[in-house]
């Protein structure tokens, strides 16, 4: 039995089910990260002296990571647009570039975290509230990047077979994972200035 409204839009919502589903999920994600941003405001306004991000963090590395993420966002939307234009080869190319930028982000993050742990004395989440909220927020964000890489990787590899059997549904899947990926980019757009610069 086919699951209804995978491709066609439901008459009442005007959307195919997967798209409404991802927006509900993103709404819950806003609340998840919103809770942490709220905690950040609470911690920061609760003390007289909040450390500057530059005291602990590497701004050039984070700037590079910001550029990686916005680059991955544009290649992600280009991969969807390629499918809309029936160009599967370009879809593959743009998705591969998206994965490359995502991995580059993770590698830079690895070096960032390693430098914190290798510092003498080590900078740990337990060191102070600033580092506690930094590791919590960026750690949760990294988990989202890893989740995105797994799904995008699947749709680049074995999952891409669906293009031959049901191209419209496959294009919708790319739109859905794209929405998730842009959201992850959007969270970083706020994390970067809040933690590193302000």
């Amino acid at each position, binding site marked *: 039995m086919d699951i209804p409204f995978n491709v066609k839009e439901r008459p009442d919502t005007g959307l195919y089910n997967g798209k409404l589903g991802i927006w509900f999920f993103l709404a819950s994600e806003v*609340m998840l990260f919103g809770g942490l941003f709220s905690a950040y405001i609470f911690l920061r306004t609760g003390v007289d002296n909040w450390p500057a991000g530059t005291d602990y963090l590497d701004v050039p590395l984070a700037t590079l990571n910001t550029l990686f993420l916005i680059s991955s966002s544009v290649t992600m939307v280009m991969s969807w647009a390629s499918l809309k234009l029936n160009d599967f080869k370009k879809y593959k190319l743009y998705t591969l570039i998206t994965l490359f930028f995502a991995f580059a982000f993770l590698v830079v993050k690895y070096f960032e975290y390693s430098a914190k742990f290798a510092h003498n004395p080590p900078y740990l989440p337990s060191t102070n509230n600033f580092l506690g909220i930094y590791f919590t927020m960026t750690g949760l964000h990294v988990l989202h990047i890893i989740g995105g890489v797994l799904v995008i990787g699947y749709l680049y590899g074995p999952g891409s077979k669906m293009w031959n059997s049901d191209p419209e549904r496959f294009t919708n899947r790319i739109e859905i994972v794209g929405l998730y990926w842009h959201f992850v980019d959007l969270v970083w757009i706020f994390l970067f200035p809040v933690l590193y610069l302000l």
Partner: protein
Amino acid sequence: MTPEEVKHHIKTYVLVFIALAFLTVVTVAISYIDLGVKGGIALGLFVASVKASLVACYFMHLLDERATIYWTLIATAISFLILIFLPVGAFLAQARIY
């Protein structure tokens, strides 16, 4: 969406990408300008909000979406604002105690 519309969108995506890269440089640059803590935070968050709006409007296609999604996002925004302003309420309560 017709192929012509998609091609038109692709040009927009490239322009948005250039704008995002430029605004990232602006975000870093203003952190080096001494605007005071409040001024720095206000300007930094303003630029971040512009960047986030570009991603949401163009990459996530929110400029041209169904009402169901807009209503979902309005409910989310209200809940998010309550969450963000909770600390303010906590401080006002603290001020009354002391």
